[in-house]
């Protein structure tokens, strides 16, 4: 993304043109905030429901035999715009993916923007444009929203919270506790891309690279997988804490052990090089467009084939199995045939010199 946002091309930009940056008044509930919503958010996100600007969105959903999936997520990334995307993309795809991990088709999104006083209007425009584009690409409607402004120094520019609703089709039974012995463990593609893309522009650690964030909506990939087989037991999008966190969470929820081979995990050479240089383990680096699937071992090949046919699943790989040993623990076979426990990361991933 990163096309510059041009306020001068707006049809009725006058009130906002006077304010090149966000000021406290934009969150006060008065005319300024109304202008911001009508001139910044509505034009980009508009739909029938949002247009009513009610306190709440009233939705017509035919549940029939479906169940509702409901998820919330807040986005606090820094910098706001990074190689491969922005907080706008993350805020849509992050919640869409959480909803998609239940097997649901994402339908509606809410969007709450917490703006820091001093945030350049142009930047907000860029991010909202990306947000709107992501919503459109996904097919979700942004039906309700909120805007607040905090004093300068209290907000890192912009925080976004999104909450999503989706419909789970009948017959789909995906839950973190459903993994069973013998199940196949699949990762949908290369790991660590997002985290290292962010790291490459992080002050003090920057480096030159072509690594881009992998931020992407996974709901269609999930649909493709479910079309191949309903015997998918668990899905997890591997975000903060990386693949390691996702595997650990599933192992603990299902009270099973997971055993995988390190060498099988797909990794871009540049991401690997960046991790080596900074002394970080790619298993712990964040992703924003990758999922872990635990499926019945007998239909693993079909699911993999389906994933390979989708642009976001071309490098999907079977990396391991669910085992009955070491319940709750994830163990990997190392490149030299040894084994090691892959524990939850301790905390923030830090570069090291030792």
């Amino acid at each position, binding site marked *: 993304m990163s096309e510059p946002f041009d306020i001068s091309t707006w049809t009725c930009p006058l009130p906002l043109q006077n304010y090149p940056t966000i000021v406290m008044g934009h969150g006060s509930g008065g005319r300024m905030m109304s202008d911001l919503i009508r001139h910044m958010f509505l034009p980009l996100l508009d739909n029938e429901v949002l247009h009513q600007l009610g306190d709440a969105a009233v939705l017509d959903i035919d549940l029939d035999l479906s169940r509702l999936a409901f998820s919330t997520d807040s986005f606090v990334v820094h910098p706001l715009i990074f190689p491969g995307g922005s907080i706008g993309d993350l805020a849509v795809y992050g919640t869409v993916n959480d909803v998609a991990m239940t097997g649901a088709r994402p339908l509606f999104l809410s969007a709450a923007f917490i703006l820091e006083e001093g945030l350049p209007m142009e930047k907000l425009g860029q991010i909202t444009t990306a947000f709107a584009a992501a919503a459109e690409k996904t097919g979700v409607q942004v039906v309700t929203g909120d805007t607040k402004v905090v004093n300068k120094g209290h907000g890192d520019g912009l925080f976004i919270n999104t909450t999503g609703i989706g419909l789970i089709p009948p017959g789909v039974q995906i839950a973190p506790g459903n993994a069973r012995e013998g199940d196949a463990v699949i990762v949908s593609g290369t790991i660590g891309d997002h985290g290292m893309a962010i790291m490459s522009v992080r*002050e*003090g*650690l920057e480096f030159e690279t072509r690594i881009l964030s992998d931020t992407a909506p996974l709901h269609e990939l999930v649909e493709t997988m479910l079309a191949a087989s309903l015997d998918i037991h668990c899905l997890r999008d591997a975000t903060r804490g990386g693949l390691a966190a996702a595997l650990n969470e599933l192992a*603990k929820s299902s*009270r099973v052990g997971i055993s995988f081979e390190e*060498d099988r995990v797909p990794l871009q*050479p540049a991401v*690997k*090089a960046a991790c*080596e240089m*900074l*002394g970080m383990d790619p298993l712990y680096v964040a992703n924003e467009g990758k999922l872990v699937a635990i499926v019945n071992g007998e239909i693993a090949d079909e699911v993999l084939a389906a994933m390979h046919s989708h642009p976001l699943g071309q490098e999907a790989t079977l990396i391991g199995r669910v085992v009955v*040993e*070491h*319940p*709750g*623990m994830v*163990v990997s076979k*190392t*490149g*030299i*045939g*040894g*084994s*090691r*426990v892959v*524990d939850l990361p*301790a*905390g923030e991933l*830090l*570069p*090291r*010199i*030792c």
Partner: protein
Amino acid sequence: MKYLDEYRDGELTRKLLSEINQAVTRPWKIMEVCGGQTHSIIKSGLDQLLPPEIDLVHGPGCPVCVTPLELIDKAIALASQPEIIFASYGDMLRVPGSEKDLFSVKAAGGDVRIVYSPLDALKIARQNPDKTVVFFGIGFETTAPANAMAVMQAKNQGIKNFAMLVSHVTVPPAITAIMESPQVQVNAFLAAGHVCTVMGYWEYQQLVDKYQVPVVVMGFEPVDIARAILMCVKQLENGQAKVANAYARSVDEAGNLPAQDIINQVFETTDRAWRGIGTIPLSGYRLRAAYHQFDAELRFPEIQTINPQESSLCISGLVLQGLKKPNECPAFGKECTPQSPLGATMVSSEGACAAYYQYGRYAANLDQKEDI
């Protein structure tokens, strides 16, 4: 990655391990000095693939682990000052002081920044003329040239708002201390490959002559490690004691002379306290008089620290000397975990306790871990 992947070759490593198996006839205690090597060994699982006769003893080569508690407390005190920007390598952020760590100082509003290179700390100083940048200069001889260069550049460029909190330690005195300790019984040493890249390995000849122990300079990847262990074992089995180089692509006998030169220009040898071990004479570096203006301890003498209190449960000193394995510590995995570390060996990414915990060496069997 070229010159990295080849040394992670599983087949080659297993071949070397098989050679080790065939060569060994009696038990041997071999100490790998460097924490980075410990980390690599545990992460790759190489320790599990060695024959039972070989006891790999983990040495004190973890600059983070051995930085004295008082210095950590001083760092925390300095970082808490509003006019100071405290810059550090990432490794130090979670090391517990008497009360908290640098991360908590950051959370409380202190300006604590992670840098990749000491030159980055200098850059921050240039960009922030109204503040003083204090850089946490930790490390062994490998990092000393870089830290020295930063100080020298500060002097040459007239950057007055820069200071270094020095915590440098050196390897050979530590090995001597270990050999002199009556409790320690190490039969051979695997020397730190990157320390030797800078310092060469000529210093180890006198250790070999005095103590008759083989010393093999070792790299960091599984092939390098297996090869070095094999060379060690062959010497031991043949009753030999020589200095050998198993990392010749980076190390030669003399070392890196320009790097040594700058160390000598900026630093001088001094006694240093090693956390958990005690003071080892002439085992560290301090800034020479000509650079005293950049010494954070001299620049901020008023920074008082509370009387440092080590946890009574922590036995990291014994771990660092190779006298106990991390999983032999009663607090290991219980009171002491990476989330709530009692000592530095559990915090530092290449501390032996952290490596053992992270990669699952809770006990002999993996499935003895209880926590689900």
